[in-house]
C-alpha cells in the first residue's frame, strides 16, 4: 500500500530525513513515534505529497508520487490526512466541510454527498452538529469532524499527524476512541502520536525515528518490553507513564 525508498529531505542545509525506507501492507496499522524533531511529521507529509522531497521514491495507494509533488492531486483523496490543527474550513458548516471534496473531486451530486456525510457524522456521533460551524465545536469534536471529512473520500490510507496534540487533555480520549474503532475496520493507517497506550493497543508495528532515520521497527510488545536501542529506551523512559 505504501512503499518508501531512501527518502531524503532537506530543509535548507538541515537534513531532516536521512534515507528512510518503509513498507506498509494493506490493512496494516503503523504508529510512528520518536522525540520531537526526529522527522516523523515530515515523513508523513512527504508520503502524501504535502512536502517535496530531496531524493527517494514514494509509492502510495497505487500512485507513484513525483519528486516535485506535481501530481499530488492525482491522489484525489485516496490518502486521507488528519492534521494536528484540524484545518477545517471555518466558513462552512460541518456538513459542507464533509461534502465539499465529495462534490468537487468525486463529482457526487449534492443530495448523495449529503446523505453519505450524514451517515458518517452519525457514526461519529456528531449527527446533531451537522449545521454547526467549526468555531462552535470543541477541539475534540472538530478533530472528529476532520477525521469524518477525510473518511468521506473513502481513502485507502489514513495518515494522522499528531491528531491529539492540540487537544485539551479531556478531549484526547474521544478522538483516540474514534481512531481505535477505525483501526478495527481494516483501514491502512499511519499514526504519528505520543499516545503510547493507543500505540500498544492498536498498532501492528511501531516505527521509532530519531535524527531523521528509522532506528527501530517492532511489534508493540517487543517494542515496549524489549527495546533494542539505547535511544529507544531513553525515549520510552521519558514518556514512560503514558504507556499505561
Amino acid at each position, binding site marked *: 500500500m505504501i512503499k518508501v525508498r531512501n527518502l531524503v529531505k532537506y530543509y535548507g542545509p538541515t537534513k531532516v530525513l536521512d534515507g528512510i525506507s518503509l513498507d506498509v501492507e494493506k490493512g496494516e496499522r503503523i504508529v510512528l513515534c520518536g522525540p520531537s524533531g526526529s522527522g516523523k511529521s515530515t515523513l508523513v507529509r512527504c508520503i502524501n505529497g504535502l512536502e517535496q522531497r530531496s531524493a527517494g521514491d514514494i509509492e502510495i495507494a497505487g500512485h507513484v508520487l513525483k519528486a516535485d509533488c506535481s501530481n499530488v492531486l492525482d491522489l484525489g483523496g485516496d490518502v486521507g490526512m488528519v492534521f494536528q490543527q484540524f*484545518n477545517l474550513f471555518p466558513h462552512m458548516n460541518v456538513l459542507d466541510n464533509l461534502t465539499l471534496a465529495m462534490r468537487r473531486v468525486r463529482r457526487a451530486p449534492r443530495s448523495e454527498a449529503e446523505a453519505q456525510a450524514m451517515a458518517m457524522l452519525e457514526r461519529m456521533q456528531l449527527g446533531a452538529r451537522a449545521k454547526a460551524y467549526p468555531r462552535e465545536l470543541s477541539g475534540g469534536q472538530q478533530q472528529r469532524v476532520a477525521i469524518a471529512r477525510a473518511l468521506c473520500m473513502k481513502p485507502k490510507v489514513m495518515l494522522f499527524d499528531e491528531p491529539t496534540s492540540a487537544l485539551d487533555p479531556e478531549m484526547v480520549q474521544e478522538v483516540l476512541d474514534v481512531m481505535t474503532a477505525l483501526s478495527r475496520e481494516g483501514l491502512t493507517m499511519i499514526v504519528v502520536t505520543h499516545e503510547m497506550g493507543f500505540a500498544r493497543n492498536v498498532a501492528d508495528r511501531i516505527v521509532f525515528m530519531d535524527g531523521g532515520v528509522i532506528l527501530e521497527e517492532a511489534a508493540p510488545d517487543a517494542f515496549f518490553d524489549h527495546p533494542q536501542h539505547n535511544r529507544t529506551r531513553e525515549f520510552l523512559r521519558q514518556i514512560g507513564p503514558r504507556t499505561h
Partner: protein
Amino acid sequence: MSPDIFIKATPIVLQGLQLTLIITICSFVLGQILALPLGLARQANSPLLRWPAATYTFLIRGSPLLVQLFIIYYGLGQIPAVRNSILWPILREPLYCGIIAIALNSAAYMAEVVAGALKRVPKGQTEACISLGISRRHRFTDVLLPQVYRELLPNIGNEIILVLKSSSLASAITIMEITGVARAFTARTFAPFEVFITAGILYLAIGFAFTFLFRLLERRYGITGTRTPAPEASA
C-alpha cells in the same frame, strides 16, 4: 452664515448626488473586480505575474489621484492613436474618465489588501484541500477566496468610503457631482461656508449609509475568531 443660503444650497447640492453615487458605485465595483486578479498576481509564484502587478500598484499608489485624473482625461486625448481607437467614445467623456481613474486607483489599493489577506490564510487550509484532492481552481473559489472576502468585509466597507471621498476630485475634470455643483454655486453666491458645509453633511450621510450597509453584511457573512492558530513547528 445665513440660514437662507443653507436652504437654498440644499437642493443645489442635491443635484450632484446622483453623479456622486454613480461615480462612487461604478468605480467601487470596477475597482473590486480588477483588484482580485491583481491581488492574485501580486502573490503569485511566477515573477511574470508578480512583477507587472507590483509595478502597477507602485505607480498608482505612488502618484496622486488628481494627477492620474488629469492624465487620463486631458493627457490621453493628445495621443492620436487613442483618439482613433474604439475606446475614444469612452475616454472622451469626463464621467467615464473619472470612473476609470478612481477605479484603477481603488483597484491598486485593494489588490495589496487582497494579496495580504491571501497570504494570511493559514497554510493548513491549502494543505487540507490538497489532501482531499481539491483542485487549484476550487481551492480558490470554494475555500481561500470566501475566507479572504469574509475577512476583508471591513476593509471593503472602508474602501467604498475612500472611493466616495475620491469622487469629489472628479469635479476637477468638469463633472458636476456634489463638489462640482457646490463650487459652481459658490462662484455665484460667494457663500462657500454654507454651501460646502451642506456638501460635507451630504457626504457624511452617504458614508454613513454605506457603513451601515456593510455592518449588515459583516453581521451576516463575517467570520471572527475562527482562524485556527498557525501550527507550531513540529518534526
